Structures are given as structure tokens and as C-alpha cells.
């Protein structure tokens, strides 16, 4: 008999368990035998890495545009800003600082032929790009994609001297040890009896690794771990999924997986301070606040855009 639970996340953020069975498994095959056939919780292990970077990005829409084409009629567009950056946690000195912040503004147009956004009195300025259709979601995706690219570059740059944890699934699979950190479970990768191990995870433990899309260029190792067990929680409470490049050796992936299981619970957030606790990690929460702040005042951006466009028109 199943029980009813109330999710700890603020309802505005959806739920950590957004499963859609139609999508499961999403991409390629899942291989559960890559680490072991003996599926039971595995204790994490802290290898004492001294610098861990948490990479994330935030974006927002500053203004909606309309491109008034005399022939095709009006087509939509938008101007958005994104900021990506990292919090580098120096475990030796017990200090965290924000690093490698990058801010970009883009005008995304759905149609037209070579129209450019006029010069805007903002720093950074506004670039122009095109979406492959006029569906509003595609406009947003174009901006999102720009941000994810920037995140990837940020993660890659930091990977040289830090263990990197990037928010969200990995976009580009390269041969570096970046960990993708997935808070919400939109896809069910494991089926019974393997999925049963997740309910048995204690904080600091992980599931055995499995591979996703192992026969494609997007092959990656993945595993579940529990950050914390909240009071009144269900069997998946405080569980997140991590993934790293399938091009790494199995031993390296194992030690990365062990490290995340041991270390990430240390930076898990608490329900009284974060509406997405414990999955929204403290450094990432702080980074998002800082990045939102660095994007500048939205009202000011909006007014500056209007001013620039009107000046061009007159």
C-alpha cells in the first residue's frame, strides 16, 4: 500500500519527482552492470580534494520584441540576460568565493533577415541571434542554449584545478571529470529491482553506477545519492542523480562517485533556508543569488532597451 507525502519543495519549483514514464528510459540503453551486479547501497568516500567548484547559470527575459516585417507580418523575439559563474570552495582554508562570472545579453529573433539590435548603452551590450522558429519556447531555448554553452566553458576552464560540480545534466560530454548534478528526476533510469536500492540509501551513500546511452557519443556514468533524510520524507527524499563523462575510466568514475556521495551532503541546504532543500546546494543557492544580482536591474535594462530602439527609430 502506497503512502501519501507532501513534498518539501516550494510548489512553484515543481517537484523533485517529475517522473514521466513515457520518457523512461529516455536515451539509449541503461547498463546496470558497469560497476557491479550486486545492487546495494555503497558508502561514499571523501578523497580530500581541496578545491571544489560549483558551476551554475541563471537567465531571465528582460523584454519581449516584435519584428514588424512588412511582408511576413509581425514575428516575436525577446531580449534576455544570462549570467554564469562558479563558487570555488577551498576546503583547506574553509572559504568560498564567487569566480569566473560571465554575463551576456542576447536579442533572440524568430524571423527577419539580418536585422540587428541597435546599440544599447549597457555593459555588456546586447548581441543578436536567431531562433529556428517562432514558437516562444524556441526563443527561450535559444537563450538557454547560449547559457548552457557558457556554463560548459566555465566548467571546462575550472576543471584544470578543481573538482567541478555543474548544475543540471551534462550538455557536452568531454574527457574531463565534471560532475553533472541533477536535482529533479524527470526520467526514470532504473527499473525494478534496481530502483529499489534508492529507497535503501542513507545520507552519504550512493547507488552503484550505471551507464546511460553507453553506445552513443553521449555515454555517461550515472548514480543516485542521498543528501539528507528529511523528517516526514518519502523513500526518494533528498535523492539526487549525478553523472560524469562516459569517456573516463571506470576507476576514475568510481572515485568521483564516491567523493560526491561523501561530500555533497556537507553542502546540502536546509529546509528553513531554501525552498528546494536539500537538493539546492548551499554554494549554488548563493551563486544564483549573486548571479541574479550581477545581471543588473531588470527595470533599468528594460528602459535602456526602449530608449535605444526609440532613438534608432527617430
Amino acid at each position: 500500500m502506497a503512502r501519501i507525502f507532501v513534498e518539501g519543495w516550494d510548489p512553484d519549483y515543481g517537484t523533485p519527482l517529475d517522473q514521466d514514464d513515457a520518457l523512461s528510459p529516455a536515451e539509449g540503453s541503461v547498463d546496470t552492470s558497469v560497476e557491479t551486479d550486486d545492487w546495494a547501497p555503497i558508502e561514499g568516500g571523501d578523497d580530500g580534494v581541496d578545491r571544489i567548484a560549483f558551476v551554475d547559470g541563471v537567465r531571465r527575459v528582460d523584454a519581449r520584441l516584435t519584428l514588424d516585417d512588412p511582408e511576413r507580418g509581425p514575428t516575436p523575439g525577446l531580449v534576455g540576460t544570462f549570467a554564469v559563474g562558479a563558487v570555488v570552495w577551498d576546503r583547506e582554508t574553509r572559504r568560498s568565493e564567487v569566480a569566473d562570472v560571465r554575463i551576456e545579453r542576447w536579442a533572440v529573433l524568430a524571423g527577419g533577415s539580418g536585422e540587428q539590435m541597435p546599440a544599447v548603452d549597457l555593459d555588456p551590450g546586447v548581441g543578436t541571434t536567431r531562433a529556428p522558429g517562432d514558437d516562444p519556447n524556441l526563443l527561450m531555448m535559444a537563450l538557454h542554449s547560449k547559457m548552457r554553452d557558457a556554463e560548459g566553458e566555465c566548467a571546462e576552464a575550472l576543471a584544470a584545478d578543481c573538482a567541478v560540480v555543474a548544475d543540471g545534466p551534462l550538455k557536452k560530454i568531454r574527457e574531463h571529470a565534471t560532475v553533472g548534478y541533477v536535482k529533479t528526476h524527470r526520467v526514470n533510469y532504473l527499473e525494478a529491482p534496481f530502483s529499489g536500492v534508492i529507497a535503501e540509501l542513507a545520507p552519504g551513500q550512493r547507488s552503484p553506477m550505471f551507464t546511460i546511452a553507453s553506445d552513443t557519443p553521449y555515454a555517461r556514468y550515472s548514480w543516485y545519492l542521498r543528501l539528507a533524510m528529511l523528517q516526514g520524507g518519502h523513500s526518494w527524499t533528498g535523492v539526487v542523480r549525478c553523472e560524469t563523462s562516459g569517456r573516463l575510466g571506470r576507476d576514475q568514475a568510481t572515485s568521483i562517485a564516491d567523493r560526491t556521495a561523501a561530500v555533497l551532503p556537507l553542502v546540502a541546504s536546509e529546509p528553513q533556508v531554501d525552498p528546494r532543500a536539500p537538493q539546492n546546494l548551499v554554494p549554488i543557492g548563493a551563486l544564483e543569488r549573486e548571479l541574479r544580482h550581477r545581471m543588473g536591474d531588470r527595470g533599468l535594462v528594460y528602459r535602456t532597451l526602449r530608449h535605444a530602439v526609440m532613438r534608432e527609430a527617430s
Partner: protein
Amino acid sequence: MSDESTQVGRVLGSQHSSTSAFRVVLDDDNFLQLDDLVVVRTQVPKAGEVRTYGVVTEAEAVYEGASYESDTHRIAELGIMPAAKVRTAQVQVTRVDPEVWVSPDPGETVERATGDERAKALYVDEMSRPLAIGIGRDELPVHIDLDFFDGRKGGHMSISGISGVATKTSFALFFLRMLSAREHAGLVGEGAANMRVLVFNVKGEDLLWLDRANSRFDDEAREGWAALGVEPTPFPSVAFWAPPKRRSGDVVVPDTGGRFDGIDVFSWTPREFIDDDLMQFCFTDANDAKNQIPFIRERVQTQLKRFAVNVAGRPGAVVLRDPSQTPGARWGAQEVPAGPGEPVIDDLASLVTALEVFLEPEDGSEPDQAWTGRVMPSTVSAFMRRLHAAASRLGHLVRAGESRRIDRGSATVTVVAIQSLHEQGQRFVVGALLNETFREKEETGRRLPLSVIVLDELNKYAPREGSGPLKDMLIDIAQRGRSLGVLLVGAQQTASRVAPEVLENAAIRVSGRLDAAEAERAEYGWMLPSTRARARVLKPGTMVISQPAIPVPLVVTFPFPPWATRKEEVDEAPGPDPFAGLQPPAPPPG
């Protein structure tokens, strides 16, 4: 002019700066503390450079980026959250120069005000006569404009603070020492040498050693005095007066405990008591102004002046005789021999007995209406009852014989020791002396030389509630003394218990540590909220000073005194030198 090394931070840009206050975000490698002085240069379109001067009233620090209190642990202990430590200081604007009232620009550099800039921040350049009155946090002197004390633009000083740690009297004396310092004679100006100071010692015998060096005076204190530019010496010219010991017979001995040498005994003769209307100061209790006692008292005073005749061979003593017995109905300076059995008035008790004849005849007949007016018999007996009480409490202050009036002219500082007297006696002496001082100045009508009166426990003499001749006179001094050069340095634990007329007229206001509840009262409205909070924890030797020339109160310290404040501190001359006989003995100090 702009020196990079003096920059301490920048004007905060996330809040409005204003013409009265702004905040400074400090540079990582510098700091500002309370009372530091700063200057900001702002380029104002069409007006040019405007300098905003200010004083730090609060210093604060916060983790920027921490949104919950528990984030502090995440930042400082675990280090899993990024944050910036931000230190800021609140600045209260003291001056804008030139007077273009604009706020300082956000992000503008804030510099420590030193040298000329410091003087401008504190208006020293605009003071016609800056007198050092304490030492600022930067160990440089802080000034008041003497014009606001000596009556040219304002007068009087009011000092508040709780007993013990507020050091009200110490500050008053320090101020007097500054005022009377040889180095400041040029500032005080014409009449500096003839300035007269009247100080009442109301508690202990703290003030009876002003002419003796302090054995605890150390190098640190010496530096303080050096900063003020005054040579640290005891008061050079002091006269000490004390009432006679009671029942000491014909031998007149000062009523003091620790010191006898160099102390003169004061008293008034019955003649002086009558001529100077001193009887009014026997009726200084707040209750005495009720019913018709003042009426009968004035009547009696007038009658005494008419009836009193000097007695031949008894200086200062009088007998009461009807003036109609003499031509012109005025006794004047005549002397008469005392008749047989005629009661000679040679002290207060005998005066009261003589008055009974007119006011409460022993044979039970009606009192003489020429003396009582038409007041009710109960008022007459209330009047006599109070006179009897006065005779027993302060009777020893009135005695016939050679005149022992206090000579306020004999030294710059006259200390009158009234600590041994009953409260009624204290009020009598204070009243009599203030009256004398004030009348004297009223007669000459000249402001100079200055006459300064230092009075502690002002709430006893000019209480907020009730009325009386002493309170009336203090209010009179507060209101008119400024133009007559009679300046009151009043001190009290609680300003809220002092007559507002007296407080309001004090141009210079000073406060030491205050009781927490007292600090919130309207009487301390001249303090900033931050100063009020601080006034509860001020250390001895630290005072808050407000003066009309500077729109914010300043916090200053004053150095340890070079004069002794109690017997144990007196720096005794070194033991007898074996060769002392070969040299002339040194003159005694004072």
C-alpha cells in the same frame, strides 16, 4: 591637497546620502572608529567642488550575501557559502563648505580629515576664540568657541551625568583650569587676570586640594596636557573658605575634616544678615513659598532694617529699637549702648528671640501688625517655627564680631566648603553668595571681569518643581547673567529635575555617563540617538559636548588633573633635606 594615504573608503551608493548623514564603505586596509572626522569632495555641476565634513557616529559590519542568520556558520565556519565582509561607518555631517547644501556623491572617496581639514570639520576656523576643552580621538584638542560661554554670543554651561563615573566636577574644574590658564589669557581677553570663580564644595572635600600637586599625575596625563598646550600645574590662585565649627566657643575653627591650614572661616554678622536681606535664604524649601510666608518674611525684613541699631563696642551686633525714637526716623550708622536687660542680637538665635517679642508675644497678646501684616496667626507661627529650625541648623553662620564675609576678590578661584552644612544651610550660603555676586555685577553693569559660578547638584537649588528665592535667582542669573558676565557652570545627575529655564539658557552642554532611562528624556534632545546610546557606557574622563557653533555633539576626553582631588593624592614635599638649614625655607604652596 588630496593625499592618497588618507583615503578610508567611499560613500555608500546603495542608500541615499543626504546633507545631514551618509555612510562610508571602508577600504579593506583601513578603518574608521567613532568620533573620527572625515571629508568628502564632491564635484557639483555649476557650483564646483563642495566639501562635506562629518563625524563618525556608528561603525558596522555585515556579511554581504548572507540572507539568514545561520548563513554566518556556512560562511565563516564551514566555508561552503561565498560572502563578502563589508564594513561601513555612519557619518553625521558637521559642515558643508562652501555652503552649497548638496549631499556627497555616492562612490566618492572619503578621506580622514586632518590638519586644516580637521579644523574646518570642527569649525575651528570660524571660531573667533577657540578654547581647548578636551582631547579628540585623534589626540588633538577639541575646542569650544569662548564667545558662547563668556556671554558675547551665549553663556553658561550645563553638565549632566550620574555620580561617580560621570566626573562632572572634575570636568568643571578642568574647564576652569583651561579658562584660567596663563596660556589662554590672550583668548579670554581683557579682564582675564581679574576673572573670579566661585566654586562650592558640596560633597566630600574633593575641592580642598586644588592648590596641591597630585602624586598620581603621570606621563600619560602629562601628554594630555601637552596636547592641550597648557602647563599642568595646580590652580595657582585659590582661596578656601569653610563655615566655623559649631560650638567651638570663641576659637573660630574651620569645619573641615582633612585640611585646616590655608582655610579661612566665613560667617555673617547680624548686621550683614539684616542689611543683605539674608533672611530670605532661610526660606528656600519648596514648601516655604506656599501660603503667606513670603509675605510675612518680606515684612519682617523691612522692619528689621528700620529697627536695627548698631551696638557700641559690639561690632556686628544690633539691638531692635523703634526708629520713631530718632530724628528722621532712621538709625543709619548710629551706635547706641545697649540698655540694661535689652536683648542684644549677636547671633541668629538671639535674633529669633528678639523677633518673638513682636510676632509671638509671651503674654499671649496679639502680635504687632506692623511686623506681621494681616496674615493668619497660623502663618505667623509657621514662620516662627521655620526661623527656629533655621537657627538650629545654620545659626552658627551668623555671629557678631569682626566681619568674616567671603572675600571673592582675594584669589582667582574661591572654594567655599559647604559639605558639612545641613541642606538648608547649604542653600543659605549658596543663596547669600550668589545674591552678593549678582547684585555686585548689577551695580557695576559691566560684563568684565567675568564672574564664574560652579554649582553641583543644581537640582537642589533650582528644582523643576516649586519656587523659592534661590530658584528665582538662579533663573535670573541664567537669563540675565550672560550680559552681566555672571556665568553659571551648573552640574546635575539628572537634568530632568532641574528648572528648564536654567538648562535652556546654557549654551554649552556637557554630559558624562547617563542613566539609561535618563538618557531618553527630552532634556538630552541635543544628543544624536547614537550618542545617547553611548552616553550609557561612557568611561570616566569622557564627555559629550554640544555647542551652538557645531551642529553635532562631540565626544572628548580630558586628562587626569595635576592637582590633588583628595588628601591621599597630595604630593607631599620630599622629606627634610639634611642640608636644609643651609637654604632659606621654601614658601608654602598656595
